[in-house]
């Protein structure tokens, strides 16, 4: 087992799925290009079609199970919210229903559908990014195009710290409660509880940062020499570059056609 583990770092990180093997930046390029279509074609049918395309992409990447849960959770909250707010409140000429401040108009409903479906596309892009791109792969490919390694560190360490601090929050909250700080009651009591929970968390993290600075400097973190990588990705093959270029050109063509016609 040990040998296969070590050997797995001797070659580029690859999975069985062709879509997952596409360079992370190229993936983002394709997703965003698809998303841009929505801005130039103001039809909700187009937006729904693109959303379905994202679902198909998730299936093609073999990540459907990871994709559909968060996507539905986000989409079913944000889409209807955007729709309802506009449908109920947007002022317009063709009144359908009016009661007090609620005034449902045809314009409001059209606008609501339009924006709700655009938000579905946005949710699709973001969820697809999170399920098909690993953060460390993204930072690796950013470094390949010249982003300094400090930035990679900041991104990866932010993601890790969010998880760490979340765990710590629970501990601090419990311990402050055991010391008699009330976390339930009226609004003012609860506001008072906020600082005793957050400040130990923050101050602890800051003093930890100082120690980390010294530890990392001892490991030549601030050295100006080129870095080595434990995990690395393959350079994008020619076919992939052609595919991305083709998708971009196709979408650009579609947009130009849509604008001209």
């Amino acid at each position, binding site marked *: 087992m040990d040998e296969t583990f070590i050997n797995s770092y001797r070659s580029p990180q690859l999975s069985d799925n062709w879509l997952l093997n596409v360079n992370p930046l190229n993936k983002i390029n394709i997703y965003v290009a698809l998303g841009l279509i929505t801005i130039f074609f103001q039809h909700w049918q187009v937006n729904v079609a693109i959303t379905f395309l994202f679902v198909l992409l998730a299936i093609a990447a073999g990540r459907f199970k990871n994709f559909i849960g968060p996507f539905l959770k986000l989409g079913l909250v944000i889409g209807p919210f955007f729709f309802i707010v506009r449908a109920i409140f947007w002022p317009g000429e063709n009144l359908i229903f009016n009661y007090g401040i609620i005034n449902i108009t045809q314009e409001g409903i059209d606008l609501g559908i339009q924006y709700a479906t655009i938000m579905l596309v946005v949710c699709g892009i973001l969820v697809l990014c999170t399920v098909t791109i690993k953060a460390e792969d993204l930072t690796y490919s950013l470094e390949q195009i010249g982003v300094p390694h400090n930035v990679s560190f900041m991104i990866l360490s932010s993601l890790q710290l*969010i998880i760490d601090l979340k765990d710590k*929050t629970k501990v601090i909250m419990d311990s402050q409660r055991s010391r008699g700080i009330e976390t339930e009651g009226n609004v003012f009591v*609860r506001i008072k509880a*906020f600082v005793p929970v957050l400040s130990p968390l923050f*101050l602890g993290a800051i003093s930890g940062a100082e120690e980390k600075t010294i530890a990392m400097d001892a490991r030549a973190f*601030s050295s100006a020499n080129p870095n080595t990588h434990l995990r690395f990705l393959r350079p994008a093959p020619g076919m992939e570059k052609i595919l991305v270029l083709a998708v971009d050109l196709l979408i650009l063509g579609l947009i130009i056609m849509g604008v001209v016609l």
Partner: protein
Amino acid sequence: MKNRNTGLLIFLIPIGVAVNFVGGQIAVLLKLPLFLDTIGTFTIGAIAGPFAGVIVGLLTCLSISITNPQSLFYVINFMLMGFLAGYLGKKGFFTSIKKTLGAGAIMGMIVGISGSLISYFLFNGFGVSGTGVLGGILMGAGVPVWASAFISNMSVDIIDKVPTAMVAYLIIRNIPQKTLVKLPNGNVFLNAYKK
């Protein structure tokens, strides 16, 4: 060695991002009627300068938008907050309670203006959270679209940013001096505490 201080900054920025995230969650856990999800941006901006603040804002926006996609459109707002916190911090705005309240109000106002501009041009004046409902109620009551976008965003931002600035102040107050001394804006606070 190039600079030990930039090293510390690189470690502080992720803390700012994580605290933004966790602060928002604590506010939800305590069922507070505020967002309080920019405490990290305020604090790190104030002690480490505008540049660090902007980066904290940017990274926060990117990581929040995974669970909250609509905030992606407000990325300029997140960065503006970091910049303002850094600028006002340099001017000594976070050194006393009165000044901090002022800083919170100023930031709430400026961020409210930019937020309502974004809401107005991208989302027809509806904010993307509770502000959207508030703006909608105003619109339903016959207030023009631009005015309701303005009122709803401004009021919510000021109500949220003043307590956020206060919390940031209380945290900065408790940062040990040996840490402050290594930070770009640290001398501002150290000089103020000496008096």
